């Protein structure tokens, strides 16, 4: 098998991950609890942090990207798994109504559709994404991002863009 998955004790791995991130990047916050390493980074550092995670630390799996609309800012959670019991949760906050962040598709190709979904639902633009189209909503004539808190559920509202 050509894929090398991390081995060894869970605690030593967790501390290795924590140290690995702490030594290479200026993190805003970092903690390890249970099987979870939680780090908070600045948005401009995010691709570098994820590159460290994949290339240096060997965390191979990006589980999902969650965007949370905090009304005025967007909180992005990147959940990484090393496939052997440890989770790494990278959080970052994008200020402003029109968020832009660098794509991580170059590091984790699976992020492609996660980022398309985030763009579709929240309007978060991913700089450098190869194919940033809407994933679920109509491709044309629909200019809303439905999971924003400002988007109220109303049938009339949803369809006005289409007509």
């Amino acid at each position: 098998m050509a894929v090398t998955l991390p081995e060894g004790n869970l605690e030593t791995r967790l501390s290795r991950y924590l140290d690995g991130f702490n030594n290479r990047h200026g993190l805003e916050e970092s903690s390890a609890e249970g099987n979870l390493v939680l780090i908070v980074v600045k948005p401009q550092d995010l691709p570098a942090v994820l590159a460290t995670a994949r290339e240096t630390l060997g965390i191979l799996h990006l589980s999902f990207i969650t965007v949370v609309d905090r009304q005025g800012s967007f909180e992005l959670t990147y959940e990484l798994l090393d496939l052997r019991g440890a989770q790494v949760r990278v959080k970052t906050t994008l200020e402003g109504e029109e968020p832009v962040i660098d794509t991580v598709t170059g590091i984790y190709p699976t992020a492609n559709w996660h980022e398309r979904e985030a763009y579709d639902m929240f309007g978060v633009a991913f700089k450098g994404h190869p194919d940033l189209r809407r994933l679920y909503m109509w491709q044309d004539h629909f200019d809303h991002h439905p999971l924003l808190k400002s988007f109220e559920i109303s049938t009339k509202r949803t369809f006005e863009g289409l007509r």
Partner: protein
Amino acid sequence: MLSEERRTEGTALTRPATGRLVDPDVRDEFGLETIDMNMGPQHPAMHGLLRLILELDGETVVRCDPVMGYLHRSKEKISENRMYPAVIPITDRIDYMNNIAMEYGYCLAVEKLLDVEIPPRADAIRALMNEFGRIMSHIPSIGFLMLELGAFTPILYAFRERERIQSLFEAVTGARMMFHYIRIGGVKADLPEGIPEKMWSYLEGLEQRFEPDFVDLIEGNEIFISRTRGVGKMTPEKAVEMGLTGVPLRCTGVEFDVRKHYPYGWYKNLDFDVITDEAGDVEASYRCRIGEVRQSIRMIKQILENLPEGEVLADLGRRLRPNEGDGIGRVESARGEYAVHVVSDGSDTPYRVHYRTPCTVNMQLLQEIVPGHYLPDIMPIMGLIDPVSGAWDK
């Protein structure tokens, strides 16, 4: 809405990568063109409502672009406007072939937020039902694979098993499909009188029928082998890179199972193997599914043998108001890693619920590996991924 300048900044509006086999120059020389073909959303083999925009060079696919969203029901938006327990029926409808795992993931996430202890009997019953759900989903998957290869009969044998398990579910949960059985803090009700014995006898019958109906009739079939061996072939690196989970990942030889490596609930106490296969093609995925059904049978027997006694639902009070924070519940559904991320703001409705459905992620495989295959090979590759419309569209 994106402003014009951000739109150009954020999006490089290129077409997705093509796996063009025919050199464009050669094509021009002979005056040949590719055909654009629109497969779906109303198409019998699209596992629901999927649209594939295909570019065909004769019978060979050179570009495959999946278009989703035809069954998008805004599960995440609806979940934000409902109280915590009322989200469970919504999750039921995400993956309608394997609903019980969908409920399980959400309940795990909310329980992590609430930080509550689950009675051991409830945990065991959850694992029991989850494994029945896996059998109930894997056996029709095998049937669908055969249906897509042109053999109509196995699907009816598969649905016979599914119907019987559904009858067991009906006896336990009161519903045949949308169970709403796993609740925050436990399960809705204890197993009724006599049901464990019925489950046991069903399993013994299934073990007897499983070999002749789903292995002997299919595995050695010459046409089945020629249609599936080497089709949808992928390397483990590719599978990991694409973020695949579940059977599509395990059939390439990467051993990853959430039940084993991120154990939850009763799975810590169970003894089972993670089924892997080296080939990484459609045939390997079929063998993995067969193996996983056998493991599920084994697990259910273990659970039934030592079913703990006690309560099945923890008392959490009437209104659930978790503390602010994140709760992530991760389970192995029949299709892969299913994770629910619940963000709470301290009120009685979730602030944000994100469902990471395995189908959405696994389906990225379509645009990567379908180009270069023949048109009829799309169907077995869909059988390899085995997506469910409700799950990829949420």
